[in-house]
């Protein structure tokens, strides 16, 4: 388990981390969310000692993180980077042996991943001879060369095409299922909602929301009603404690505040000539996010 305990870091007048406290558990995918500049990258760098903390601590399995623990971590930085003139396999093996693994062991892991990601044929090419997509895959393997117990990925989905995103999602799920703690940042909230059980949302260096998605949803009293219909759009206003989140031709999403009367909502629904679907939902991750960082 990775624990952030009141981690704080200032860059001049900017508080990049301000008492940041959360955990990322083994066997789980933890989505790390927050607006740009919230401190996500700083927090991830701090795990690897790349940013020294001013106050607070980060612990792995209850102990402060040192070089020994880090050699069992994998990291994919936001700024992707590899030696452009070095051969793919050689580079990956090099990065693996830097973690203190035996060469043979690393080679086995690297070959496995290269096979798995259809890169076996490019193993002896220089990195800069690869397409952008393939370079991204090599970058991912670079984070996996030491079969990490903790995998930290900064925006792993940015710049990927839809197919590559699916592959990445499957892969992260698999790594977590094998026992690793996986922490990744993303702005793609729909994707995080589908993929993760645990979510941490930070803003201005502080955790504003953290927990399992179910807990977070349950923790919010307001509910949402989504109605799909055929025919003319009626007027949705005029009911107390009910706001229109989104109204399009043929569908509407309504937010029901705590005191909303279900009877009023049903009467609202009756304003449409023909209902196709009616759902009563907790908030989506995207709605939780907006509430949290507002």
């Amino acid at each position, binding site marked *: 388990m990775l624990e952030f305990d009141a981690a704080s870091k200032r860059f001049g007048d900017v508080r990049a981390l301000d008492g940041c406290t959360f955990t990322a558990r083994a066997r789980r995918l933890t989505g790390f969310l927050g607006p740009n500049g919230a401190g996500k990258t700083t927090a991830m760098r701090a795990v690897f000692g790349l940013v*020294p903390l001013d106050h607070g601590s980060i612990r792995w399995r209850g102990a402060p993180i040192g070089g020994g623990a880090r050699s069992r971590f994998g990291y994919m930085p936001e700024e992707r980077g590899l030696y452009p003139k070095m051969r793919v396999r050689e580079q990956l093996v090099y990065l693996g042996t830097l973690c203190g693994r035996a060469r043979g062991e690393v080679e086995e892991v690297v070959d496995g991943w290269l096979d798995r990601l259809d890169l076996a044929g490019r193993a002896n090419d220089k990195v800069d001879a690869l397409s952008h997509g393939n370079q991204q895959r090599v970058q991912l393997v670079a984070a996996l060369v030491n079969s990490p117990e903790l995998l930290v990925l900064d925006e792993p989905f940015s710049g990927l095409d839809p197919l590559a995103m699916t592959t990445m999602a499957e892969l992260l799920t698999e790594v977590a299922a094998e026992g690793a703690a996986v922490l990744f940042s993303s702005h793609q909230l729909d994707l995080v909602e589908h993929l993760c059980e645990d979510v941490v949302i930070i803003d201005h260096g502080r955790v504003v929301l953290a927990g399992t998605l179910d807990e977070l949803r349950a923790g919010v009293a307001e509910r949402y009603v989504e109605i799909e219909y055929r025919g003319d759009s009626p007027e949705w206003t005029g009911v107390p404690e009910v706001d229109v989140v989104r109204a399009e031709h043929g569908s509407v999403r309504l937010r029901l505040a705590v005191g909303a009367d279900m009877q009023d909502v049903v009467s609202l629904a009756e304003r449409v000539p023909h209902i196709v679907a009616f759902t009563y939902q907790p908030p989506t991750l995207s709605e939780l996010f907006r509430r949290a960082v507002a």
Partner: protein
Amino acid sequence: MKTPAQIWLVARREVRERVRSKGLWAGTAIMLLVVVASIVVPALAGGGAVTKHVGFTGDTPAALTRVVRAQGAAVDVTVRVHRFHDVDAGEAAVRDGDIDVLVVDGRLLEWRGRPQERLQTLVTGSIQLVALTERAGAVGLDADELSSLTRPVAVDNTQLGIAAGRTQEDETAAYLMSILLLMALATFGQLVLTGVVQEKSSRVVEVLLARMPARNLLAGKIAGIGFLGFVQVVLLAVAALVATVVVDSVDVPAVSPHVLAWVIVWFVIGYAFYAVAYGAFGSLASRTEDASSVAAPATALLLVAYWASLIAVSGDPEGGWARLASLFPASAPYAMPARIALGTAQWWEAPLAATLALATTAVLVALAGRIYAGALLHSGPTLTMRDAWRRRSARSQSEEGARMGEIRRRLDGGDLIALALALVCGITVATLTSDVIVGVAVGAALYATAVRVVHAVR
């Protein structure tokens, strides 16, 4: 993972990747060629007498051509005689460079451009001699008496070197060694610089630093590139030795195994010094385009130190300035081996200079390590030294805290140590240069720098 193992892996990668580059091999081949050629070519060309072509036209005294030849032979100049029917043909030959001088009527010398002094003396002297002979005959001396009177005396020339027991060939060898050291230090220093900047600009540095401390990365890089430099310099030294044996010029003591061993040692020391500086400067730049401008101070020091030691040593290799240059860490890698080659260094001077240089490098490693670690993850505009230094300051609270704290404790009372050091160095300099003002200036500058360093670390 253990530090030595990581340094070894980094160094191994540097060597493996760079051995594949054709540039390194081409550079080594060219330097080998220069070294071998500079030893073999003079040996092959040397010893052969100088040949001069002298043209004669008009009314030439019968004895003149013979006398010119004989006078030439006396000073190792072979004179080839050419005769021309008229002045025009002779002047044309001068203009074409076929002959060095045209003697018209035994009275007028025609040159292309400025007269060649040695040949001018030779021909003029011969003309005087022939005239003397003719006048002596007129006075009544007989031919035998005359020839015994005018028989040329062989005159030898010896060129004294600037150092006793050493010839000009030794000096040339010493200067050549300095130039090769400069080239090697610049080449491998630049490799460290571009290596550091490339890691930053390709962003691979963040992946690396997640796996190892910055100091291991810098140490491994310097060690790997340094190993290649060491191999190159050893190759050059061995080539120089083989070449001297092959051409049998054993009378050049500057190219002896003892001197060459010192050259290799000084390459290692000089490389350590400049590579650390280049590494620290390189980390300040984010783009490869900025690399050379950001490292300009290191390059300037490299070149100024070279010129200063060249001027000091060629002026007087036993003088105070030469001694100072050979003790000062930045210029010692050039000046000290040159003085060793010229046989003007006392036995204790080289170890002392080496100790000074290594001590300075150790201080530099501590400073550069912090700047390097602070600057590596910075992207965007080029950092200043001060910013890079400060970016690292918060590290004192994390795992490196204990280490930095220890260094700081050691520097407690650093002012006193700095003062003592400055005093000793100032007095040494003053004694060596026999110049009190220079000694005071050096001591004061050293004290000021040391105090600033101590306070910056605090």
